[in-house]
């Protein structure tokens, strides 16, 4: 793997839209060509070179790793639509990181803002800090969101994460979120997504779930009234094959959507 290093040289006054920072866009380009790639700073068209010092070299998509240094908490859309390669972000990052990506790996060594991994079609997004709302969710007006790939958040995720997630058994696509804790409406309108939470969650988990698997290893503030207790289990097999052991209460839901449902919610028994 070859590395392209980007170091932020001045803090943007307004959010910087950096959808051009992807291995796909850097592949096969010289450093000068990379520096000239356009970014938007509010309504001003600028270049990568205006805001970043660029060094290293790029190769083909799969072998290009981009390392970003400096405080990019106000930089949005990094990694948008990438299909391969790697991005490592050594700080907090702005909204929409890794959205619509279908391959490759992004590692955020800090917090991520809202919409991280939105519309994910594949690949891996890892966030070592906390993440905002709508993680792995569908964009406004879309009724199919994350359809494949894995998102790992060590800390918390906000509301409505994994909104409209959709899995496919024939295609063996199991969109999955692992997180430390979650706010409300995790798995809203779920159509097959898998969510595993190491800690606690708030309310309305699995709201409008049609099918899917949500596992809560901590506590839940309130289970929706439309979820019905089935039994207690000691082992859960996730659709992607992984096995989780421990004592869990198994619920079916969301019964506000249908009388019979394949949707499942597991809450740890302490």
């Amino acid at each position: 793997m070859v590395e392209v290093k980007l170091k932020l040289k001045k803090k943007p006054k307004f959010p910087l839209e950096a959808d051009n920072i992807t291995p796909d866009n850097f592949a096969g380009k010289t450093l000068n060509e990379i520096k000239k790639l356009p970014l938007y700073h509010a309504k001003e068209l600028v270049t990568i070179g205006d805001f970043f010092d660029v060094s290293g070299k790029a190769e083909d998509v799969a072998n290009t790793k981009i390392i970003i240094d400096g405080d990019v908490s106000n930089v949005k859309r990094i990694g948008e639509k990438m299909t391969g390669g790697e991005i490592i972000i050594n700080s907090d990052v702005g909204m929409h990181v890794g959205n619509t990506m279908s391959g490759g790996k992004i590692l955020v060594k800090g917090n991520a803002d809202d919409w991280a991994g939105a519309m994910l079609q594949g690949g891996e997004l890892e966030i070592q800090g906390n993440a905002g709302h709508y993680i792995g969710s569908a964009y406004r007006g879309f009724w199919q969101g994350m359809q494949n790939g894995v998102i790992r958040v060590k800390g918390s995720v906000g509301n409505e994460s994994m909104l409209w997630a959709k899995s496919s058994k024939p295609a063996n696509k199991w969109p999955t979120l692992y997180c430390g804790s979650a706010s409300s409406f995790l798995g809203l309108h779920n159509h097959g997504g898998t969510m595993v939470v190491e800690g606690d969650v708030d309310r309305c988990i699995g709201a409008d779930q049609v099918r899917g698997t949500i596992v809560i290893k901590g506590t839940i503030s309130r289970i929706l009234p439309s979820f019905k207790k089935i039994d207690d289990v000691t082992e859960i097999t996730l659709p992607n094959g992984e096995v989780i052991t421990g004592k869990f209460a198994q619920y079916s839901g969301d019964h506000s959507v249908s009388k019979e449902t394949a949707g499942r919610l597991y809450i740890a028994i302490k």
Partner: protein
Amino acid sequence: MSLKDLILLTGRTINQGVALEGGKTTKENVRAAGICTFDKDDFKKLDCIAGTPVKVTTDHGEVLVYSTITEEGPHPGIIFIPMGPWSNQVVNPDTQGCGTPTFKGMKAKVEIVKDGRVLDAIELIGKLKEA
């Protein structure tokens, strides 16, 4: 005297609507929107007469308003401030990523401030403008 563990709701009232059309900088507006409405029994615990200024505090700010007793009760544990400059000092600006602040449902506490001066809209909003 004070009360805590209350929930603050905000919203329109017909008086507030009439006052805002009549002039947002008038005294009528203060009497229509610079108020906090209490449940009858909750108000007894405050041990003061209706109209006494009270300080309402939430996680997001504090504001001085005139106290009144509700005509829309009983609603123990709930207080109501009409929408406007006064309620907006204490509402939750967080939109949870959806764009609309959470104007209703904040946890609040209330204490009497007998000689408190309830500001009119212009003065109150003026405090948000730095020198």
